């Protein structure tokens, strides 16, 4: 069973389309654009690309340099 991780990617202003294309080329699934880009991908892909799967310190890889400012892994909410 593949363990998928979802995240919101904050692109460099004006480079949103290029960022989405680069993420897609790396193997991420692009789910939605907007102020941030919604993506998902297997755990292994996250680790290979960013060196981590959490919200801690991560490296932006060369393929995304100048395109991506930050990546935020999402968490499930509580239903009230």
């Amino acid at each position, binding site marked *: 069973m593949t363990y998928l991780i979802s995240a*919101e990617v*904050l692109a460099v202003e004006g480079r949103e389309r290029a960022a989405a294309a680069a993420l897609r080329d790396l193997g991420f699934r692009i*789910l939605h654009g907007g102020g*941030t880009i919604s993506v998902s991908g297997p755990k292994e892909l996250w680790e290979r690309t960013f060196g981590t799967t959490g*919200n801690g310190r991560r490296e932006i890889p060369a393929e995304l340099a100048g395109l991506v400012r930050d990546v935020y892994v999402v968490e499930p909410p509580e239903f*009230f």
Partner: protein
Amino acid sequence: MVTVTDNQENRVHFEAVVRSESGASVFEGTAAAQASVLERLAPPDGRAADAAAELQAIGFTIRHIGTYSVSGECDRGLWESTFGTVVEPHTRALHGQPGDEADESDQVTFLSHVPDVPFTVPERLSSLVERAYPQRPPVFFGSPIPPPLPYFHLRVPDDVALILRATAVHQHGVTGRGVLVAMTDTGFYRHPFYAAHGYQYQATLAPDATRVEHDEYGHGTAEAANIFAAARDIDFVGVKMGANPVLAFKTASDLHPAVLTNSWGFHLPGLSELPNYLKPLELAVLEAVRERGITVCFSAGNGHVAFPAMLPDVIAVGGVHARPAPGGTGFDLQASDYASSFDSLIYPGRHVPDVCGLVGMRPHAIYIALPVEPGDVIDRSLSGNDQTGADDGWAVISGTSAAAPQIAGVCALLKQAQPGLSPDLVKALLKASALDVVHGTSAMGEPAGEGHDGATGAGLVDADAAYRLARSIRTRNLLDLPSPR
């Protein structure tokens, strides 16, 4: 033991009908049982037990001996050899409506007879058993009407509409018609409640969600009924959430609804800065309100320090509990001790809630009878507390999850009356017209009191008073005058 959801590809579960004493048969025409006196169909004393004993001697497992039939099960091979027949597997959905396509996880396989293949009751059983049939799993569907319950609770739509004074607005012909209201939640099952009331209730998926016709948890299906209580003629779309709540919110926002309601959030006690992982959600909410003009409601939380309710741009909805006043005149109102109230440290000056909807009291806020998908998590887990069945498609719940959609419905009434109202103006109207609540304390222990207070904010939303304010407002042209925002 098996459950109804287990696949049964090699096991026959059957009912064997015991021969009657009179010779009358339940199979004589389609209405035999209705037309006949039941006594005529009854077997003589002991015959059902004799039938069971004989079936058991052949090798069948007997589960129950009833008045008219014996329940049992056996392997497929024994069934076919005993009765000289053939059965075959069939697959179909347990839930949903006719014509629904179900995915694999909702399908169940069972054995049933092949049409036109002979079936013969063997001689050793023929004096005892008239016929025998493999049984198939039922389709689960809830009643459009909640079950009778022996304690005080509210029903949708009428009780909620009455207490929020939405009924009075409906009498002016303002029912939310032409207003699109969206909601993000766990799913939106097509419960018969919605069809029976003629509601425009649609569901769609966030791009990472599946099974649009189901709500495995039950939360969204239940809480959506609160919106219709306040605004019965809205166009509703529920966005089923997958793993990413931001994605669900953005999907709903992209539909440009007039109102977007959300009964969920994140508990951030003691934090003075928003965690990074919630910043995309913050952006998406701000875009919806500020750039798209969507009125966004969020539940204040049930003792939670809830984000995004704490965002100043949204309408944060807390809870007030209403009970009939002694003597039958009106309602006694008090702050719900189940609902949140707090000052945000992340957004200084921001207090939650802005206004309140109807919420129950501790310990479980069992208060409003709401439709759920039969047998889902809420239906099963609450049945011990709310005295509804574990798979009857109804649960008595509330929390601020119920309050936010109620107020979203009132917002829809205002948007019908005045489509140009900005989100800030909608909030201002709700606050200016709310019913003051002076008793009780919130889950955080803040007391209610005269005027705006910590526990209830401006108080319980009064739909009629809000509507009377809204209908008189003339929204200004931004080029001519300062915006009312």
